[in-house]
Every structure is written in C-alpha cells, then in structure tokens.
C-alpha cells in the first residue's frame, strides 16, 4: 500500500438521518479533509446504482449509503430500495473483480442513532483496511 495514499469515501445519505443537515455536512468534510465526500439526497430511495458506480469509477475507494432506520422511511420504502440497489452494485463490481466490501449501507437505529460524522469515520477506517481501489490506482 502506498504510504501517501489517502482513502476517499463517497457517502450518500438521506437528509433525515441524524447529523444530516447542510452545516453538518460542511463540518464533516472539513473534519476528514479530502477523505470524505458527502452527498445528501432527499430520501435514500433516490439513490441510483449509477451514483455509486460513478463515485467508484471517478474518485472513491469506497461508496456508502446511510439511510433512515428500517421501517422508518418517511417515504415508506426508500431505504428498502436503496438496499436493493446497493446489492445490485455489489454484484456488478464483484463481477469485474472489485471487492464487494467497497460498497456498504448503514440503516440508522431508531433507538441509538449514530451521528453521520462518526459513521463517515468508520467508513474511512473500513476502506483504509481494504486499501486503494485498483480502479483508481491504475
């Protein structure tokens, strides 16, 4: 692994999750410097597979989705759709030899929600363990 490698994650998140406001987004991106690019979406159901793929293709070592808790989507089933689209992307990238763990989804907990800032840090840690994306390093 290159010593000067800085992991980059793309985080797509429902604006209704804890810490999902615009000010928080700026703070998180500032905190993690260039390692986190955050993309708020009105509902995780708005997520398309191509969003994750484009992130992986163009700049991200990993792409993640943060959704409302299961059963608590204000549009009823947005997070269920997000989960399905994420699995589609996982299968697709695995079919080309890219690690499936480079994409992931966290559904917030109703009881003990985790702040988006903390989740972003965890995503960066996960990707740091996997290493640089072979798509980007070549």
């Amino acid at each position, binding site marked *: 692994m290159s010593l000067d490698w800085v992991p980059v994650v793309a985080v797509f998140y429902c604006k209704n999750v804890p810490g999902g406001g615009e000010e928080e987004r700026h703070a998180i991106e500032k905190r993690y410097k260039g390692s986190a690019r955050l993309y708020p979406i009105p509902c995780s159901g708005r997520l*398309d*597979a*191509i969003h994750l*793929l*484009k992130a*992986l*293709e163009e700049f991200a070592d990993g792409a993640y989705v943060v959704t409302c808790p299961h059963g608590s989507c204000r549009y009823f089933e947005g997070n269920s759709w997000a989960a399905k689209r994420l699995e589609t992307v996982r299968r*697709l*990238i695995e*079919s*080309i*030899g*890219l690690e499936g763990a480079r994409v992931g989804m966290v559904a917030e907990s109703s009881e003990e929600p985790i702040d988006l800032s903390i989740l972003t840090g965890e995503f960066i840690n996960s990707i740091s363990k996997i290493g640089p994306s*072979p*798509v980007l390093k*070549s």
Partner: protein
Amino acid sequence: MITAEQKPIKEIRETIAPYRKILVLGCGSCVAECAAGGEKETAMLASALRMAARMNKEDVLIEDKTIDRQCVRDFIVQLEGVIEAYDAVLSLGCGAGVQAVAEIFSDTTIIPALNTEFLGQTKDQGLWTENCVGCGDCMLYYFGGVCPLARCSKQLMNGPCGGSREGRCEVDPEIPCAWQLIIDRLGRIGGLERLGKVYPAKDWSKKQGRGPRKIVREDQQR
C-alpha cells in the same frame, strides 16, 4: 413487449476484448421497461466495463449512448456521425435491435450485450412473464385471453393434461396451469362453449414455416 436479460460481464468482456473504442448503446423501449438495456442499465454497464478495463490496464475508450429504439430506422440513423468513431458497438438492444443497427451500419461490428428472452408482460415491479409466442394466428378469443401455446408448458391446444394439480403445472408447481386459467376465465365470461370443439394442432406455417416473416402495409409507406 420483448424481454431480455444482460449477459454475464465475463462473456461481454470476452466479446469486446479485440476492440479499443467501444460505444455501449442502449435502447429506450422494451429493454428499458424490463430494466435490461435502458439508459440506466447502459450507463451502469459502461461504467463497470471502464472500471474493469482500468483494473486490467487495458487502453480502451468506452462511452455510452441510448437511443429511443434500436429496431426503428428513424431512430438508428441518429447514430450517423457518431458510430463511425468507434471500433465496435456493444448493443443493449434486443435481437431485433442488434440486427437493425448492424444492417444500417454494415461496416461496424455490433455485439449483443443482452440475451433476448420472450414476448411478455410486466406483471409486477421486477416480474416479467411470457405470454405470447407470436404465432401469427391469434386464438386468444377461443381460450379466454390465455394463450395455451405461451403459457401451457406442453403447448396443448386441448387441455388440461393429467398433470394439472390444484391449478398448478406438473412441469413446475410455480407455473399456474394455463388450462385451469382458460377454463376458469371462460367460465367467468360465459364462454365455456368455445371449448366444445377439438382444436387441431397448431399451424406453425404462419409463424416461421415460410422463413422469416414480414408485414407490408402500403398505406403506411412513403
């Protein structure tokens, strides 16, 4: 509509391997409806192929474009001035679309990215079922709107067979017995007398017995 499914990436990568400039071409009609070859799927496939190429240090250009219909000349000609820049076109059209594009751009390699499946309906989100074989002599009136050729596993014109069990087919219990459906439906619409005759074996000459078919409508021609 015509349904299709994407070929495995491995097979697609093998077929495009000899080419350096590839246009991934989607179709916005039937294959978009069945989520196999529309604009989204085309962009996804192109992105995945670009990533695969980079991972394998292949020097290729892969771009994508979707036209409304790959099986209609008026839409295909939109590719004039575009297609010439590529060594090959990876088509996410059905078999008809692939051939129509290949016919018009006869000097360009057109590669199918989909396996064309059947004529069917969108029964639910993410569920497509076969219900027409394009026989050229529709008999749905006699069978209450349920085609025994497309939906009976044995294509029986006079059913049901002895393998119908509680409305299910013995070939696969997942499949509803078409003849049960026919009888139920004709019963509901008061048409059971249509089954009072023995139907002869299907005359397949109207399908492909005389080679590839065509329809000529002079009133529609220029």
